[in-house]
């Protein structure tokens, strides 16, 4: 379960270009719930994700994961509880390391790292099996350095790395936005399969209205640093792209284009 309580963050405070990124944001996501976050640029989506992951320190407010206050925890300590897939495929993987080594790093996310050999036969077999689920042939490229993979392959790898070990919370930060439509679809399908199979509590940020309609149990719309609208249950199942867009004045062309 994820709870954000009246989170506030102001950038450049007291200066002419002061920017309220989060303005008393409240949000809660039940265990096993798949929430989709939409909102125009500058609505606070990235700030919210950064506040959850710990990459950004809040001015005030709290972040709770499964009831535990993680507000003051640094990124590396929160990592034991949450996993994040970034928009940029470069960001979520270590390019100069191999596929297997990247899998190992994710595997140890919530465990204590020891002085034992990292890539043992048992782990390699496990990674091979998990990567095979993607159907991209990554299971035969365990020793390939990640920088030699395509963006789609890297992003798929990031996803497998993130869902491994069933994190308490999965954050998806426009994770298909940088991919071509076909690859984006493959990654999205793999995401949905994993989230459903493992019943992961998931928060997905997207600019793609169709994705917001098709996936998830609820749609959360952010505007000016707070939740403007939340649609869940039966209403969510019936919603269309046109409805969603009708719910708020579209500030940028991007949303229309992306839909």
């Amino acid at each position: 379960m994820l709870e954000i309580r009246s989170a506030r963050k102001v950038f450049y405070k007291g200066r002419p270009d002061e920017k309220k990124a989060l303005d008393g944001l409240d949000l809660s996501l039940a265990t096993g719930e798949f929430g989709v976050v939409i909102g125009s640029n500058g609505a606070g989506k990235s700030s919210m994700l950064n506040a959850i992951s710990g990459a950004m320190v809040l001015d005030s407010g709290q972040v709770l994961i499964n009831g535990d206050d993680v507000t003051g925890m640094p990124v590396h300590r929160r990592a034991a509880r949450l996993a994040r897939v970034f928009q940029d495929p470069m960001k979520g993987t270590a390019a100069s390391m191999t596929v297997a080594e990247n899998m190992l790093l994710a595997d140890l996310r919530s465990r204590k790292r020891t002085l034992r050999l990292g890539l043992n036969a048992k782990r390699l077999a496990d990674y091979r099996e998990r990567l095979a689920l993607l159907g991209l042939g990554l299971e035969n490229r365990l020793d390939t350095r990640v920088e030699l993979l395509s963006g789609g392959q890297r992003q798929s790898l990031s996803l497998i790395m993130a869902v491994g070990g069933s994190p308490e919370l999965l954050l998806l930060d426009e994770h298909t936005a940088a991919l071509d439509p076909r690859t984006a679809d493959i990654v999205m399908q793999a995401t949905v399969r994993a989230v459903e199979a493992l019943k992961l509590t998931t928060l997905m940020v997207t600019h793609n209205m169709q994705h917001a309609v098709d996936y998830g149990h609820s749609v959360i719309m952010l505007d000016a640093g707070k939740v403007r609208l939340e649609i869940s249950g039966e209403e969510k199942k019936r919603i269309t792209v046109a409805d969603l867009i009708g719910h708020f004045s579209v500030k940028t062309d991007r949303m229309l284009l992306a839909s």
Partner: protein
Amino acid sequence: MDIQTIFTSFVALVPVTLAQSLILAFVVLGIMIPFRTLNFPDLTSEGAFPLGGCVCGVLLAAGASPLTAIAVALVAGFLAGCCTAFIHLRFRIHTLLAGILMMTMLYSINLRIMGRSNLSVFGSPTVFDWAPFTQPGFPASKIVVAGIIGIVVFILLDLFFKTEKGTAIRAVGANPDMAEAQGINVWVATIGGVGLASAFSATGGALMVQSQGFADVNMGLGILINGLAALMIGEAIVGKQTVARQLAAPFVGAIVYYQLVSFCLAAGMPPPDLKLATGLFVLAMLALPSLRRGRGPAPAREAVRE
């Protein structure tokens, strides 16, 4: 000077140079680890090398055992490296500037440790006295001892970088944001890694002092650029695609580089020109990739939507 004389004087110097290069390989290792593994270009070794030397010199002069002297030098180097990494992380000062600050401050510290600018420890016992199979004093004993330590360090590091902890440290160099998101404490890994590297540089200094019989505060002058040149030669020969190759590069590079230097000197190159030549060589090696690419712009980053 005819070819034969040059060749004879070069060959006569091969064992001495080999002994020297095996000792300096530790400094090259101390340059490689931050530079390649941690992506933390670091200049501390220029101060850590004489630091190790000075600490070792003072302890030898005070009658300490050569092993104790090396161990204390190693710890001193480790602390110096930790300081550089801390300065960078805490105050967000560029790694190179942090290194320059550290090596400048270390110069005073080294003078303080020794109380004067150089110290003779000739005649003190050294680790080279314990060389198996050889007579003490002859370069062979230095080659054997430095070689054995080098091989042990190489094997241990190769094993370490394949452990869970070692993989985590490499991840910090490859992508710090990703490493942090995977639960790795970037501070601990960086401080520990740079510390470890400087510990090797200091160990090199300590071995050098035991080998040459004196310590000098200026012994680090230019060691960094020599080390870089050696590293680049090593990487050109053995590559850097795997952990083992990357770790072998400093050793191979140091051996080849110092033989090259020795050959140039034997061939009549004036010693004062050496630093210029080394500098030009490192420049050429660094410039090569960008010359090959042509005059295009810096590598474009993958275009992504906001």
